[in-house]
């Protein structure tokens, strides 16, 4: 673990988490959630848990982002609250 790499990744992790909760446009929230998953994947890889990082990048950043985008495009794009 390199502390500078960890610090930058964790800062971006918190930023993407807050943005994906706060943004009104659900499509961009889904995209930013994919970015969040990819940053988590980088963190797992930094902790030498490559199997977990692999799963996170395939399931979290890849397929579940597609599922969320498909759901947003089939329902509504604006958040009500």
């Amino acid at each position, binding site marked *: 673990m390199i502390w500078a790499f960890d610090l930058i990744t964790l800062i971006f992790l918190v930023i993407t988490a807050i943005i994906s909760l706060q943004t009104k446009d659900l499509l961009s929230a889904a995209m930013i959630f994919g970015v969040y998953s990819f940053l988590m994947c980088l963190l797992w890889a930094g902790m030498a848990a490559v*199997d977990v990082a*692999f799963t996170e990048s*395939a*399931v979290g950043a890849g*397929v579940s982002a*597609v599922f969320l985008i*498909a*759901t947003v495009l*089939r329902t509504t794009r604006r958040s009500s609250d």
Partner: protein
Amino acid sequence: MKSFALITVILTGWLLLSAVSDFPSWGDTESPANDYRLSQHYITETFPESSVPNMVTAVLADYRGYDTMFETVVIFVAGIAIMSILRRKPLDYLKDTGRETRSYKKDPDLIIDTTCRLMIPIIQLFALYVVAHGHHSPGGGFQGGVIFGASFILLALSRDLQAAQRWVPEKRVLNLAGIGILIYSGFGFACMILGSNFLDYEILHKIMPATPVEARSHSMLGVEIGVAFTCTAIMFSIYSNLASNGDMKETL
């Protein structure tokens, strides 16, 4: 109500963060998780016992094989649940909204079509490598199956759902998902028939051209293939149900 939720979140977050200071530091050899003799056994004995270099896969598919079998069942059930909630017959759907029957074919875009034509075989080959090499390097049935399913999702995104359904129609999706779990539990029952415990792969050397140690490695590959079957089918099924609003005709 909103301020009450905020206070709850802040309190829970503070509780969790205050517990973090009690954690052992990263990579601490003296921490209970690393010090206990079970993890020592996994680290030192995995390769002599099962001839699998990747001990994560060995724990996942062999020592904790029963858990992984039901994880696969969970994925299967999730896919069935999404299908039973979203799937509708196209005829009722058209009657409800009064839409006219029309062609759902999209005009193929040259750049997207060519790129996906080049990319999809490489993605599928990589997925097969991840499944087949999962007990030697990072990867395994879940990851490989998800990547293989993603290649069909890419086909459905770049063209239309019918193009992908030529390869994985709905009936085949259900068959593949069931066959995956049958392969996994079949390995377990084969061990029982030969007179050992459920999912105790060592006994399978009697019907495999391998030593007892190698039989565990080969059986891990077998159950990973089963997991990959289920993951591929269910991932594509979830996407096609979500993207077509349950009628399996229209895509995004």
